[in-house]
């Protein structure tokens, strides 16, 4: 009686917590993780293990020894960063390169800004791009999945096409003829682990939408913009520019659109902000792919649009009740 709690309303709370939402994202990533391990074997498992363990340990160490703040590794967000970083790397990446990626992702891109919720850029992508720029050799040697073709390390589809175009002579049609879409959907091509099975990633995306963890608008507007841009360019000059379906299924677009661009912290809060964000990512991706130095542009496109998020949050608000 004497210790009754007196606090303002509301007196009950939903069961959602940061931890439960992040755990759902981990669950959504499981199909893609299983796929990549099945296709690439123990080496992929090593990359995943090193990446997740480094991310979690680094966040624990930084909160405990540097920030002297409550430890946040229990909320699963470091696990997600670890998985996403690993899925963005070739399975042949040496363990110490993976570790450096984790240091940049967690240490620089996340904890420097104050930890979960405070970072401007997607930590896993910052880690990935850092490695891409610093260790181009490791990062662009893609292994073909075990048992496929002649099992020789080869470039990704997008890399192969850009290389082919640079050499001259061959047209895009000749180069893309080597890939059929079924194999792109079902993980039969070389690429970073997360690029190999679009269906597994899409299953995770549908799960997240059904659980109302994320809303589909950002992802759908990326897909739509990529498809539309590719369609226009492809129709204008089929010999120079690859087509919509090819672009949708290659170069980590599905991974980026479903799991990286939809990161709460680094995406806009409002519906229209999200749509503009998605359109920006889609368009920039295609511009980098068609005209840039890198064969693949999703990571750069997302990081560039991450920088615009504060502005989008400032410009786009939801409609207020009873106001114009």
């Amino acid at each position, binding site marked *: 009686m004497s210790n009754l709690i007196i606090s303002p*309303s509301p007196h009950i709370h939903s069961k959602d917590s*940061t931890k439960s939402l992040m755990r759902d994202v981990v669950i959504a990533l499981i199909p893609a993780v299983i796929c990549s391990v099945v296709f690439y074997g123990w080496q992929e498992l090593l990359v995943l293990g090193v990446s997740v363990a480094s991310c979690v340990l680094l966040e624990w160490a930084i909160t405990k020894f540097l920030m002297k703040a409550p430890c946040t590794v229990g909320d699963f967000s470091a696990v997600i960063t670890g998985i996403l970083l690993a899925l963005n790397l070739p399975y042949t990446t040496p363990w110490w390169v993976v570790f450096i990626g984790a240091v940049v992702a967690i240490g620089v891109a996340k904890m420097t800004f104050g930890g979960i919720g405070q970072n401007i850029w997607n930590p896993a992508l910052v880690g990935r791009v850092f490695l891409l720029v610093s260790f181009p050799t490791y990062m662009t040697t893609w292994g073909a999945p075990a048992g496929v073709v002649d099992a020789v390390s080869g470039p990704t589809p997008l890399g192969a096409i850009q290389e082919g175009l640079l050499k001259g002579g061959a047209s895009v049609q000749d180069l893309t003829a080597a890939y059929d879409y079924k194999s792109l959907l079902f993980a039969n091509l070389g690429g970073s682990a997360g690029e190999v099975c679009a269906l597994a990633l899409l299953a995770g995306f549908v799960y997240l939408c059904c659980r109302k963890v994320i809303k589909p608008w950002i992802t759908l507007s990326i897909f739509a913009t990529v498809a539309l841009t590719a369609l226009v360019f492809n129709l204008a000059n089929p010999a120079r520019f690859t087509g919509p379906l090819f672009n949708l299924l290659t170069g980590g677009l599905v991974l980026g659109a479903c799991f990286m661009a939809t990161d709460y912290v680094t995406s806009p809060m409002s519906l229209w902000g999200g749509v503009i964000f998605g359109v920006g990512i889609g368009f920039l991706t295609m511009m980098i792919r068609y005209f840039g130095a890198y064969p693949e542009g999703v990571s750069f496109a997302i990081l560039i649009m991450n920088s615009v998020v504060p502005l989008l949050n400032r410009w786009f608000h939801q409609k207020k009740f*009873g106001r114009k």
Partner: protein
Amino acid sequence: MGGVHPHDSKISRECAIEPLPLAPVVYISVAQHIGAPSVPVVAVGDKVKVGQVIAEPGGFVSAFIHSSVSGTVKSIGPRADLAGRPSIHIEIEVEGDEWLEGIDTSDKLITELPEDNKATIEKIRLGGVVGLGGATFPTHVKLSPPPGSKCERVIINGCECEPYLTSDFRTLLEKGEQVVVGAAILKKVMGDVPCTIAIEENKPEAIAHIQEVIAKLGYQGIEVMPMKMRYPQGGEKQLIDAVMHRQVGSGALPISVGAVVQNVATALAVYDAVQKGRPIVDNSVTVTGECFPKQANLLVRVGTPLKYIVDYLGGVPADAAKIISGGPMMGRAVANLDAATVKGTGALLFLTEQQTRRAPEGNCIRCGKCADACPMGLEPFLLNKLSRNGDVEALEANAAQDCIECGCCLYSCPAHIPLLDIIRQGKGAVLGAIRARAAAAKAAAEAAKAAAEADKK
């Protein structure tokens, strides 16, 4: 737009309304409505009967207060109310249950509507009727729209969208006829406009029953509208939007879009006041909670001490950590069981520590769930930040004053940020600034007027 879907937890829905035996003593507050407190018109030592006026309105927006028991006035003075604030209470020692002459206490249903609307509104005023949905705004004021505004629809609010509450549901089932006649009276008073009785879909028995009653009584222009389950569906602005597809503007009254909303319990009180000459002396109170040994819907005389109600049902359970007057989303935590019920008391809810515990606050992860949940289309994450920064101007620009304090943001925040607690502070600052501006403008206008008059001289 917005809203949340908490588990409805209506565990007392099967409990019929039963009258609570009279308490030995009642404490009737003179400030149990919005507006000016009423003025006591009895003196210590006076003998009063049930339904006798013991306090008169202290202004236009105020209400009559009647004795809920028969007995002797023991004291008139300050006493802590449900919120713990002192207000004047009239203490009456109960001696029997003798009603004032002229009050029809029989169960006979009177369906003929009175002709004279003015006289009807006066009866409602004399019956001390206030909005029983929670705001306790004097009903006769709501029924007298300002000149130039016109009522186009009367909405009877039977949503009862807060979890746990079942008193309106039981009233619809057990007093459906009276509620429908009350609705017909309100409809007629407002100029024979259409009337909608809005009931949430989780009460199918009530929907079916009221439809039957309307058909049986043969009133034209009253319809039942099943509403989607969603909190706060029964918020006045939200309900008008759902029924009429019109949004009441910021700071405006429902009548500005042609709506008058009255709660189910208010419709019943209107019936009692107009048809039976019976003022508000009691109301239905849901007493509930998983930890509470006995669920109940009680008919409680106004001014009954909470302790008496709780003891009647077996006392406060050992694991109860919070007692709430009202629902779990908008109700008020009560510390003092010596406080007495008022007309607007709709529920007593007992929650355990585990049910009501607030987890430690984490960082905002910018998920936007609070903005999705806000039924007013506000952005609680932003208002939270602005409130903490004390940026009153930006708070006003982002409509902090429109917050209806429904609690959806705090309820849904996965990082357990006390959004509404913080936003309340910001909202208070904005309302203060708006009032200060209005006062300054008024003072400036008066000074200009005085100067002009001085010039004339």
